């Protein structure tokens, strides 16, 4: 297809419709975008990759001309996107190429960041690291990574942290986006690992989106839904969201429903849905008896949540709840997807588990069109979870299971005691707290921008700016966070390095190096390997701890680590990934083509020997002990976890009468480091805004475009108002707008100035979706 024939995708976000019927294959559609003046015949090489600008992970080829990236095209044969690309993938993935990149290491001298060289920068890091190890031991070190690195990089960093240094303080910004997804699957099914698959969209006759604005967060996946809706036998869609989003509109048009519960009340709503299923007997009793545990406790817990009671708590019509439950209870194939509206809200894990419960009650798992997608917000988030660069042990191993720890110790040839496993690995929010208190004094941040993405930014800036905290920032650009660093390391970005990554669908893609990184920038993998070499980490025999040098060797090392685990990669290889396009793990000798769905047989990863986690009390996060777990004899049965609804930690009141909810929109991705530098995306959404309901706007005397001050107990932003379609009493702020492109004028625009330092007790994911604020018009 000619590049000009592709319609402008800023206005036409989801592109042209290619309708299809239930059970048919989603038609292919080749999307392509090339730099102006470049035609397809001008391209020197097409290089295999996949997009990292959202968790969809669309397969694509990168166009290279004269050693530069000049465009992308979707790969039609891939199982994820069938050739489509969204606006971010088309316009944002490569356009920042070469502009204002970090090309040399920077070090802080007399308060200023000045250019340096790799030896000097790495020396500084290693010296500080060793000093602190001598003085205070490994607990002085923290690592904060991303949902943007490649599998090989996460795994290598995981080994460095866990077997080299021996620090439990490793996490990623995946904690902010996807921790609840993992936690909910561990609680219900015993292990992380997505049960469903994107292809379930082709088969379902009811689609539930719980707090998932798919139209904006995963545009290509939403095209798939739109194509089903435009074809014969469309599914009925139900959307749960406090805003009248495109998803909510489509739901109503499909004959389904839009449920708009007050932010912070999801658990009440979910308890209500579960109760309706139970009292109306829309459940598969044989499945429940054979494959689950905990039914009577669940039944007892949800008992008080009648439609009327739920209606009162959530501020919705009781009938709507009953009707939604009926759709869920009586449709033949139901697919549910869950994202940030649940994950970043109050009682996140409990509410996400209730989605799993709905499916378990109906025996609706592992079959075409009947499944759950506990989504990710970030592309390579799945890999942090698998590889142990976040708060998990690699290969979905259980820190409380001595056999699992021993396996790792043998694999790495280190003493078991080196691997921190005395308590759950430290979560991001706690890492920042330790840094605040001064017990973490070395913080290495790679490929993420916490000075914009963390909650309560005034606090984060204060921590990053502390005298006694040594901060390393490794990134492609001089971000808001880099400004606080002691050492800045220039990193190669997507297209400039090689590696694999896995999307929310368990699909593994290989991303090849298309071009050279600018200046002295290096692949993150090379930086970690260099650190390991300079620190001289050794195994028990005195050999270097890390025995690999290249991405492909790191991948092989990871394969060994994954052997026999749910996320088994042993049947994959770089060559195989170059052959077809997109393979879903587990992929091993028995399943050489990968696995489309998990748990089709109703046997879950819950045996005490195999499970990744023994589980938690959903209300407090207290851990279930190994003894308690064994006593339950789960033996492959899933857990129906229950929790009552409790009031959120902050509710609107006299001083702060609105609930503020924040989120991503279609044209930007993680703190806009890349997307803000892509001209088309930048023009489409140059600055943030505050969306208020028409009735609230009238009361506040605010009209569209007026500058408003939105203020919480923690901070404030000043942004133009948009009269939007949030429910009255709610204000929506798009997040991840920072300050690198504002000319340094104060801190009045990042939504996270206002958000709170509070997190879910189980997943430890911060609460970005609820916070009390006041709003007033800025005069003049």
């Amino acid at each position, binding site marked *: 297809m000619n590049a000009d024939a592709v319609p402008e995708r800023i206005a036409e976000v989801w592109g042209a419709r290619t309708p299809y019927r239930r059970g048919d294959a989603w038609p292919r559609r080749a999307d392509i975008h090339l730099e102006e003046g470049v035609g397809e015949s001008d391209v020197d090489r097409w290089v295999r990759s996949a997009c990292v600008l959202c968790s969809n992970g669309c397969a694509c080829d990168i166009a290279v001309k004269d050693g530069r990236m000049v465009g992308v095209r979707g790969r039609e044969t891939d199982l994820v996107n069938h050739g489509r690309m969204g606006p971010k993938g088309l316009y944002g993935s490569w356009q920042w190429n070469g502009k204002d990149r970090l090309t040399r290491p920077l070090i802080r001298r007399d308060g200023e960041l000045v250019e340096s060289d790799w030896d000097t920068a790495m020396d500084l890091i290693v010296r500080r690291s060793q000093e602190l190890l001598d003085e205070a031991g490994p607990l002085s070190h923290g690592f904060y990574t991303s949902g943007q690195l490649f599998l090989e990089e996460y795994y290598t960093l995981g080994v460095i942290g866990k077997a080299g240094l021996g620090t439990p303080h490793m996490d990623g910004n995946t904690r902010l986006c996807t921790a609840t997804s993992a936690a909910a699957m561990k609680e219900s099914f015993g292990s992380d690992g997505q049960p469903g698959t994107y292809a379930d969209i082709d088969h379902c006759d009811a689609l539930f989106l719980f707090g998932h604005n798919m139209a904006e967060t995963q545009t290509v996946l939403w095209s798939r839904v739109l194509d089903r809706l435009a074809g014969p036998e469309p599914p009925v869609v139900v959307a749960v969201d406090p805003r009248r989003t495109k998803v909510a509109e489509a739901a109503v048009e499909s004959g389904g429903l839009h449920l708009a519960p007050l932010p912070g009340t999801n658990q009440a709503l979910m308890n209500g849905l579960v109760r309706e299923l139970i009292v109306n007997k829309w459940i598969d009793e044989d499945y429940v008896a054979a494959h689950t545990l905990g039914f009577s406790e669940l039944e007892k817990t949800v008992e008080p949540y009648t439609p009327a009671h739920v209606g009162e708590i959530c501020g919705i019509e009781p009938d709507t709840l009953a009707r939604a439950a009926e759709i869920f209870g009586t449709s033949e194939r139901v697919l549910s997807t869950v994202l940030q509206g649940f994950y970043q809200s109050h009682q996140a894990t409990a509410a996400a588990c209730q989605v799993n419960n709905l499916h378990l009650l109906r025996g609706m798992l592992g079959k075409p069109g009947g499944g759950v997608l506990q989504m990710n917000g970030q592309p390579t988030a799945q890999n942090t979870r698998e590889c142990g660069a976040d708060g998990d042990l690699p290969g979905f191993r259980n820190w409380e299971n001595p056999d699992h720890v021993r396996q790792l110790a043998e694999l790495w040839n280190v003493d078991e005691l080196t691997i921190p496993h005395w308590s759950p690995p430290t979560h991001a929010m706690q890492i920042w707290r330790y840094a605040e208190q001064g*017990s973490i004094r070395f913080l290495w941040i790679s490929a993420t921008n916490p000075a914009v993405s963390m909650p309560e930014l005034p606090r984060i800036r204060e921590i990053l700016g502390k005298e006694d905290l040594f901060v390393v920032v490794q990134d492609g650009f001089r971000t808001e966070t880099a400004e606080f660093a002691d050492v800045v390391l220039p990193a190669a970005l997507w297209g400039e390095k090689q590696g694999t990554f896995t999307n929310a669908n368990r699909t593994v893609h290989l991303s090849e190096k298309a071009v050279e990184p600018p200046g002295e920038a290096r692949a993150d993998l090379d930086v970690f390997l260099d650190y390991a070499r300079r620190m001289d980490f050794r195994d028990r025999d005195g050999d270097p701890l890390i025995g690999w040098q290249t991405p492909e060797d790191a991948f092989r090392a990871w394969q060994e680590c994954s052997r026999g685990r749910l996320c088994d990669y042993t049947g994959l290889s770089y060559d195989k990934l170059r052959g077809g396009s997109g393979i879903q793990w587990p992929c091993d000798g028995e399943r050489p083509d990968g696995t489309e769905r998990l748990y089709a047989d109703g046997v879950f990863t819950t045996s005490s020997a195999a499970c990744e986690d023994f589980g938690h009390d959903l209300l407090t996060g207290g851990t279930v002990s190994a003894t308690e777990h064994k006593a339950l004899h789960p033996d492959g049965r899933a857990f129906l976890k229950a929790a009552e609804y409790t009031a959120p930690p902050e509710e609107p009141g006299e001083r702060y009468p609105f609930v503020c909810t924040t989120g991503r929109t279609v044209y930007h991705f993680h703190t806009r480091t890349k997307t803000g530098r892509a001209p088309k995306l930048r023009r489409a959404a140059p600055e943030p805004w505050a969306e208020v309901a028409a009735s609230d706007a009238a009361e506040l005397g605010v009209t569209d475009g007026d500058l408003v001050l939105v203020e919480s107990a923690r901070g404030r932003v000043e942004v133009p108002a948009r009269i939007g379609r949030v429910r009255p009493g709610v204000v929506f702020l798009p997040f991840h707008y920072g300050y690198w492109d504002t000319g340094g004028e104060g801190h009045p625009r990042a939504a996270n100035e206002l958000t709170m330092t509070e997190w879910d007790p189980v997943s430890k994911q911060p609460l970005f979706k609820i916070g009390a604020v006041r709003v007033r018009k800025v005069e003049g």
Partner: protein
Amino acid sequence: MHLATYLGLLHTSLNTLADAFREVGRGHGEEPDVEHTCLLLAGRIDRQTDALAPIVERYGEDREEEPERLHAAGLEGTRSGGVGLLRDLQDLYALSSFTDITWTVVGQAAQGLRDRELLDLVEDHEQETSRQLTWLRTRMKQAAPQALIAAR
């Protein structure tokens, strides 16, 4: 019958425990999870106290004559820093264990009296106490290494 003495003791220790959770929660506002969970648990202990009312009506409660040493001593204030947090959580653990065994003793009497209502109540509430203990143990295990090794 001395059940009334133990009901009185239970009542007092529940009140003490709820107060102590509130105190620790408020004293450690810098640890949002501790604050939130302590307040949540305190609220749930209040509910237990309320649920005790019909039982107390049935058997009475004797709060005056119980020997002084049967009291669970409450907290006088909270401490600061990593070790301070640990110590406060440990105090809560001791208080919570005290109510746990008190419930057990009352439960034994309920068995002897064949009082089904009281038995059900004890069963529910033992679960509640074990929730408190589990959370306290989890949180202390998490905090201990950093507080004892790395904190300055």
